[in-house]
């Protein structure tokens, strides 16, 4: 599992486009929104947490279609499927690698982007916490979607149609936690629900994703 993880990380760093791209996309979305809604600081601070969450979700989606597709093209996925490591483990390792490449940098960079939206420092903590708890779920759910569409030639658009509805609960609880934290309300419940979704998705979805990959390799 660690070998798969290290391989995926190395691939995404060296092939370029993986590591920095999600972050750059995140920056662009965050920059574009004020052009759409106007530059008033009060409005931006109000919608900031939600925008950051939606941007994280889209940035996560961006690199998903390559999660299994490149390996399926060059045959590496067949080898991984016949390897002694169960396919569920491969999926989990690849989802973890995807998170380290996209979710983790976004989480760490979120306070900087919060600055752009005039979010006060106490909110940064909530933002960091909710993204840290929630983005792993985005990667695992995305891995399931990518596994479903791995055999398709033009799976990218379909992938977003399949995955985005699945992201709804994560987005709701994540954004709600930040909003409550920002308003000074108790935010433990959404954070706990967010953690629950992440743990549940990480525990169960690799099995569904591995089943889908096996069907696709048949």
């Amino acid at each position, binding site marked *: 599992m660690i070998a798969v993880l290290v391989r995926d990380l190395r691939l995404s760093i060296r092939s370029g486009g993986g590591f920095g791209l999600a972050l750059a996309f995140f920056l662009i979305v965050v920059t574009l929104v004020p052009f759409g809604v106007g530059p008033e600081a009060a409005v931006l601070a109000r919608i900031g947490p939600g925008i950051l969450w939606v941007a994280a979700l889209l940035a996560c989606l961006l690199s998903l279609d390559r999660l299994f597709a490149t390996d399926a093209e060059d045959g590496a996925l067949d080898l991984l499927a016949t390897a002694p490591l169960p396919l569920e483990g491969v999926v989990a390792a690849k989802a973890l690698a995807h998170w380290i490449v996209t979710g983790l940098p976004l989480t760490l960079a979120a306070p900087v982007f919060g600055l752009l939206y005039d979010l006060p420092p106490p909110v940064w903590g909530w933002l960091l916490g909710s993204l840290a708890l929630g983005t792993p779920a985005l990667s695992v759910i995305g891995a399931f979607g990518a596994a479903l569409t791995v055999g398709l030639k033009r799976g990218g658009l379909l992938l977003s149609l399949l995955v985005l509805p*699945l992201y709804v609960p994560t987005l709701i609880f994540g954004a709600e936690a930040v909003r409550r934290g920002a308003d000074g309300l108790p935010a433990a419940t959404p954070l706990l629900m967010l953690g629950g979704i992440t743990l549940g998705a990480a525990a169960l979805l690799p099995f*569904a994703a591995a089943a889908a990959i096996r069907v696709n390799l048949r």
Partner: protein
Amino acid sequence: MSIWDYANPRRFMRVSSWLLPWSTALAAVTLAVGLGWGFFFTPDDFRQGSTVKILYLHVPAAMMAINIWVMMLVASMIWLIRRHHVSALAAKAAAPIGLTMTLIALATGAIWGQPMWGTWWAWDPRLTSFLILGLFYLGYIALWEAVENPDTAADLTGVLCLVGSVFALLSRYAVLFWSQGLHQGASLSLDRKENVHDVFWLPLVTCIAGFVLFFVALLLLRTRTEIRARRLKALLARERMA
């Protein structure tokens, strides 16, 4: 004789060819009676006037939208566990009906909401979760369309249906947590003596029964079409081989 015997496509075709005209006729009669009764022979509501009558479309459509997803879930599980092709085809055939029911529920709700709530749409938990349910239907149908091999498509959509059901439920409760509702609570339940006044209740039940029958008829029709399409494909393939 067990229920699994009907999983044989030939037997299914025979039984459904007998069932289809009956269920269609029954659905037509029940719907005509229920809707006619509801629209023309019930009094206007004290507050809502005649707009209340859209209820006879809205409530059954909304119920069916959820129940059809449950039916697809059961059919997908039967396919994944017992590999009966009719079951997979029935799930495929049900999805567009479910999407249509979702759209009917959303549209009639909007038409009722405009005069009553003063808005076509509100980000209310029930409305929002129905929108999300509609997205799930869309994704499911799109996946069926996208995968070429029918068995692969059936497997993948089956898995999607299982995972989607969990997430649809999660979304429902997440959405409840996220926003306060404008929509009224459930007005129908089995363990209450009287849900709404009998004057409205009886035509409503007739309409619900009519929608269920209508769904059965449509489902049989669409599943038969799918089976015929599958047979046609097999015949064409055999001809090419010969």
